[in-house]
């Protein structure tokens, strides 16, 4: 093969190498941006098609009759404890909290149970329910005995961790 052809091929190889690099970078797109959205990948659309909980006296409609529906709190923030500062974006899927690795919010807290408590949406509110934890779940100063509504700013205490809902 002629020397010229080989030289052309050599440059072709270098060109291909950089084409690969550029196409990888182009294909990555915004993947390297770690947004809060990407952190909790709850399936938002799941709840939209689910039957809307309007029948009966759902707490949201009873409480806010005559008012326009407030937007549901969108964030769960850990305000005290080992994971302080952590934020979880809330979709419309229930959130499981505890030490077990499969929980939505994994608490690194020795005083938390494996599956400690659960937050679930209903209308425009979030409800908190204890799942039979060893040390209990506290909402403000009261220990939870049954599922209760959580307002933004209420202190949810699990072990040494305190969580709050924010809008």
């Amino acid at each position, binding site marked *: 093969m002629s020397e010229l052809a080989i030289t052309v091929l050599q440059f072709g*190889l270098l060109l291909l190498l950089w084409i690969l*690099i550029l196409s990888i*970078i182009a294909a990555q797109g915004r993947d390297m941006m770690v947004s809060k959205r*990407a952190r909790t990948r709850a*399936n938002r659309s799941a709840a939209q098609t*689910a039957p809307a909980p309007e029948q*009966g006296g759902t707490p949201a409609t009873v409480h806010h009759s005559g008012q326009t529906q407030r937007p549901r709190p969108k964030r769960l923030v850990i305000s005290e404890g080992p994971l302080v500062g952590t934020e979880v974006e809330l979709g419309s899927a*229930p959130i499981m909290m505890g030490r077990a690795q499969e929980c939505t919010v994994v608490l690194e807290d*020795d005083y938390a149970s494996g599956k400690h408590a659960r937050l679930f949406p209903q209308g425009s509110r979030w409800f908190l329910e204890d799942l039979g934890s060893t040390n209990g779940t506290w909402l403000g100063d009261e220990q939870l005995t*049954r599922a209760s509504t959580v307002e933004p700013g209420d202190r949810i205490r699990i072990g040494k961790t305190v969580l709050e809902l924010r809008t």
Partner: protein
Amino acid sequence: MATQAEAHSRPRRNIELVLLLLALTIGIGAQVLVGLTLEDTIDERYYFEGGAQAALALAFHVVLRIRAEYADPFILPIVVTLNGLGIAMIHRLDFTTRYEGVADRQLMWTGLSMAAAMLLLVLLRDHRKLRQLTYLSLAASVVLLFLPIVPGIGQDIQGAQVWISIGGMSFQPGELAKITLAIFFAGFLANNRDLILLAGKKIGPMTFPRLQDLGPLFLAWLIAMGVLIVQNDLGNALMFFGLFVAVIYVATSRISWIVIGGVFVAVGALLAYQFVWHARNRFDIWLNAFDQQMYDQDLGSHQLVQGLFGLAHGGLTGTGLGSGSPQIVALANSDMIIVAFGEELGFIGLSGMLVLYLILFSRYMRAGLGTRDHFGKLLAVGLAVVLVLQVFVVVGGITRVIPMSGLVSPFLAAGGSALLANWLIVAVVLLISHAARRPIVVGPMLNTTGAGASGTEDPLRGRDTGEQKPVDDGTQQFPAASSSERDGGEQQ
């Protein structure tokens, strides 16, 4: 209905396939170019080698499609490119008088390593199972690291005692220790993070850990020093210690660990310089490389200086594959393969390869950022650090930024054990990235007990079918949901 979720987590296997074809073109094209330049003909041997590489890469792609659909789509093409370029360069060096048949062995090891990685993908399925092996991996690491000094099977090559030889086959068990140590550090810190994080004394802006929490760090340092002194292996010692410091920093996000780690490294380096001849030799070569006496002496700076000349000879575009003389440098196809690339592909080619390493590192880190369990995060970060430290130590050594040490550039250099270890790391990271990018579909309503409890994630869910059925979950769990609804109502 799942379209919205899929918008930000698609499998993206088709993109992987396209990039993979490009990667194979580069690897096999480089091989063909070597043949064209040095032999002037392309015989069936090239067809066979190219075909084998393509078949292996595509088989890996198919395994990913079946077993880890959401795994990172960029890792495999990058690794295949690097591996293919490595084989091409080793093949090119086989045409010189110094080396013979190394490329065939490298290709065989590539096949073996990729097969092992595929097997790991199929058998392991979920990286969280590795967490159960935390302490077993520590034991395995110690055994692997100290195997080379067992009389009978240990071998001393070039002053570093890192080889074992069984029945004519040599193997570097320390390479596998990279993986087991990363598993141990990740598992240990995922379990004990709290303790290390909460206790401590605050001095100024930094919080220092308690003395007893320094224990594991000290242990890691001892292992590194043991490796250094017993095996005369500077690079691995640095890598193991760097791995631990990086992982503990990521686990606790405390800058004090970096400071303490730096102090330990300084003390270690000082001790090594004082008492280990091998290490002092490397320091002297580094500082006085262009000294005539140093250049001429046995185990002197000859290799390093020739490497620098080689890089200079390559210039911007390189001499072209097969047209340079990279064989002048000792160990041109393993430790110094970066120099061979720098000479024949030039700055443009070599910098491209370094960028590939950078992207690969960022993909490893991305897998760690994405996954939600602490063990997976720490493991991915640890493995990323292993990769980046290897590249740094090798390229830094060759370009005289740091003293040279016996690490090899991942995927490029001739050496079966390193290749095997790096491919296994790829398999583990792919599994972690699959866990990270896989959409987690939870039903709209709740079922807290039993296997399908919502809010939790079944590790194997959606992997066999590849299809999620959130609607069905929702209707099945509706009775449970309405009861909690009532509970909420009474509370009012």
